[in-house]
């Protein structure tokens, strides 16, 4: 099977670890020297860069969390002067302060190359016509895949998201062979094609690169059958790089982590202790080469397992299992992170009271949807219908604006959200997981 960077992707374990150790020592030193956040943290717990003498010593380092990034908003954790930054991306900021990530020219080079690597592993070649149906803009998805496909030498069509009819027309007329998008977007396109009576057999599509939201084998099967493509999963997060952190090869038995640029650890999210190989836990990533925005032991909040056995494709880079769970209450719906804290803020009333609520993600017509159930007081229920309707509308508007995604608001009677133990489950995910049937509501 062809490999994009054979020298690196098929290195033996010992050589990968040598490279990781060299780069880890250098980046820890750079962080200590250039990022006051890390210098303070190191000094606080009494360690110096010289304490990192092996990869195991990684566990001596402090974690970095999303909150740390927020507290240093916007540029506090950049390791180079802004003058050297040539690109800035950031999270949507829909859920509080956004996290801002700067890329130097070398960072962009590496990013492009890593995206090329995962796209090549998924089967994209220079002969492909690649349609990028990820959002272009401050979000990393569109640009990441765009640069990767360009690096491979494919013909890139930057369609960005939405405009389903146009996506379909372009797939058909421009003879798109590979599509990069969220799985949901691919299903929407498939649906539209069926409506327009377009036979997938008449198309040239053959490869799909999907990510940015949770999906599973049954969705994979469905996308593959409806679009007649081979679908691969990939993983990335904007704080670390965007797409290009890990991706499936054509064997599809886990996502190869680009270990020459990242060290992956699995920890117990409660104790923070590193777990043995193969155990399920929270993925913690350390960047090894980033110049602009290096991160040490960043807690991704994503739950997975690691496998370092060589893969059938010949690559030796460790594989992570598809992410099916988060450690926190965050729900990822159509690529958007939905935080309960944000919903709580929307619901705060003038008197400071917060009504009880529950966030529900569910799947309907192959689409992920969000519903927020809100308990309202009896007075409000007895109030005029018109007032109730206004309140309902207000909430839906506020959710859309603040969460960055439409949420159906359902007003429920008091004390209906508590379960038999008297507690309220803040977040309920009813979307089907691998091989499971969705639980009945």
């Amino acid at each position, binding site marked *: 099977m062809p490999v994009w960077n054979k020298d690196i992707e098929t290195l033996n374990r010992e050589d990968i670890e040598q490279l990781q*150790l*060299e*780069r880890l020592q*250098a980046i820890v030193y750079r962080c200590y020297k250039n990022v006051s956040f890390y210098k303070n943290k190191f000094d606080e717990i009494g360690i110096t860069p010289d304490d990192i003498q092996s990869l195991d010593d990684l566990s001596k380092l402090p974690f970095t969390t999303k909150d740390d990034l927020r507290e240093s908003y916007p540029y506090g954790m950049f390791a180079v002067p802004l003058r050297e930054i040539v690109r800035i991306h950031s999270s949507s900021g829909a859920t509080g302060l956004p996290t801002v990530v700067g890329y130097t020219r070398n960072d962009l080079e590496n990013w492009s190359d890593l995206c090329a690597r995962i796209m090549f592993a998924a089967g994209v070649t220079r002969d492909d016509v690649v349609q990028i149906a990820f959002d272009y803009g401050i979000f990393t998805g569109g640009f990441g895949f765009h640069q990767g496909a360009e690096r491979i030498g494919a013909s890139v069509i930057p369609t960005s998201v939405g405009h389903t009819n146009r996506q379909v027309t372009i797939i058909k007329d421009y003879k798109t062979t590979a599509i990069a998008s969220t799985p949901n977007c691919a299903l929407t396109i498939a649906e539209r094609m069926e409506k327009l009576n377009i036979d997938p057999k008449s198309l040239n599509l053959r490869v799909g690169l999907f990510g940015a939201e949770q999906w599973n084998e049954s969705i994979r099967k469905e996308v593959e059958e409806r679009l007649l493509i081979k679908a691969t999963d990939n993983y990335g997060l904007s704080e670390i790089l965007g797409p290009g952190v890990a991706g499936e090869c054509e064997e599809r038995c886990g996502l190869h982590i680009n270990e020459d640029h990242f060290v992956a650890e699995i920890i117990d999210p409660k104790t923070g202790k590193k777990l043995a190989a193969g155990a399920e836990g929270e993925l913690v990533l350390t960047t090894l080469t980033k110049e602009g925005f290096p991160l040490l032991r960043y807690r991704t909040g994503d739950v997975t397992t690691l496998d370092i056995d060589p893969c059938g494709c010949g690559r030796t880079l460790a594989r992570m299992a598809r992410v099916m769970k988060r450690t926190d209450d965050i729900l990822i719906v159509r690529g958007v992170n939905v935080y309960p804290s944000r919903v709580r803020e929307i619901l705060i009333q003038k008197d400071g009271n917060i009504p009880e609520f529950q966030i529900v993600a569910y799947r309907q017509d192959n689409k992920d949807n969000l519903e927020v159930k809100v308990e309202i007081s009896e007075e409000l229920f007895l109030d005029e219908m018109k007032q109730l309707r206004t309140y309902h509308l207000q909430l839906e508007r506020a959710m859309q604006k603040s969460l960055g995604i439409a949420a159906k608001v359902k007003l429920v009677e008091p004390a209906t959200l508590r379960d038999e133990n008297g507690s309220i489950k803040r977040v309920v995910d009813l979307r089907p997981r691998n091989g499971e049937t969705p639980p009945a509501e």
Partner: protein
Amino acid sequence: MLKVRSLKVNYGAIRALKGMSFHVSEGEIVTLIGANGAGKSTLLNTISGLLRPTSGEIMLEDKPIHRLSPAVIVRRGISQVPEGRQVFSSLTVRDNLILGAYPKMRVSSRAEIREDIEHMEELFPILKERERQTAGTLSGGEQQMLAIARSLMAHPRILLLDEPTMGLAPIVVSSILTTIKRLRSEGVTIVLIEQNAHAALSVADRGYVLETGRVVLDGTVEELLENQEVNRAYLGKGYKEVWE
């Protein structure tokens, strides 16, 4: 081929290397650049066995060599061209070369050594011209050629070069660099230490930037040339140019 892991070396009370790691693969030219006192020569002297590390390891083809004597390390295939050439100035060029074959004396015949000298004189024609002169009468560039040739007499697989361009005229520098590339094409793996980052990055495949006994950056030559810190600190691009 050569792997250095978390090497710490002390000079008396001073810690010259504070946990340095790097590697060289077969057939590569790898350069280590850095300012005075960054630990570059200390590193080479430790690999050669002249200094002992307090901790860390040096592996040559997965076998540790950091407890071996310099002579054994030369026989394992690592030769160093020391900083400041250090040719035997009162001996002739030819005698200098013969001394370079010292580690091979027991196993090589006179004929083989003669052949090697001929090969060196082919590689460095100037040495043939100066064969009977004492080394002290050579110019700086010629002495550097002699020092390299002398090291090659031991048939190293890895050649450690310590500032080979130091104090040389630009035209001589470029001929030394050409020689280094030529050696690589003959199958010698090269570790090149330089303060002259320009020169080093023009021949190397990869590089490490050293700072006070540690690696602060590694990458391909293209990456290092793009890095603004390298530009500012080691390539003499003005502070102003980079920061404003």
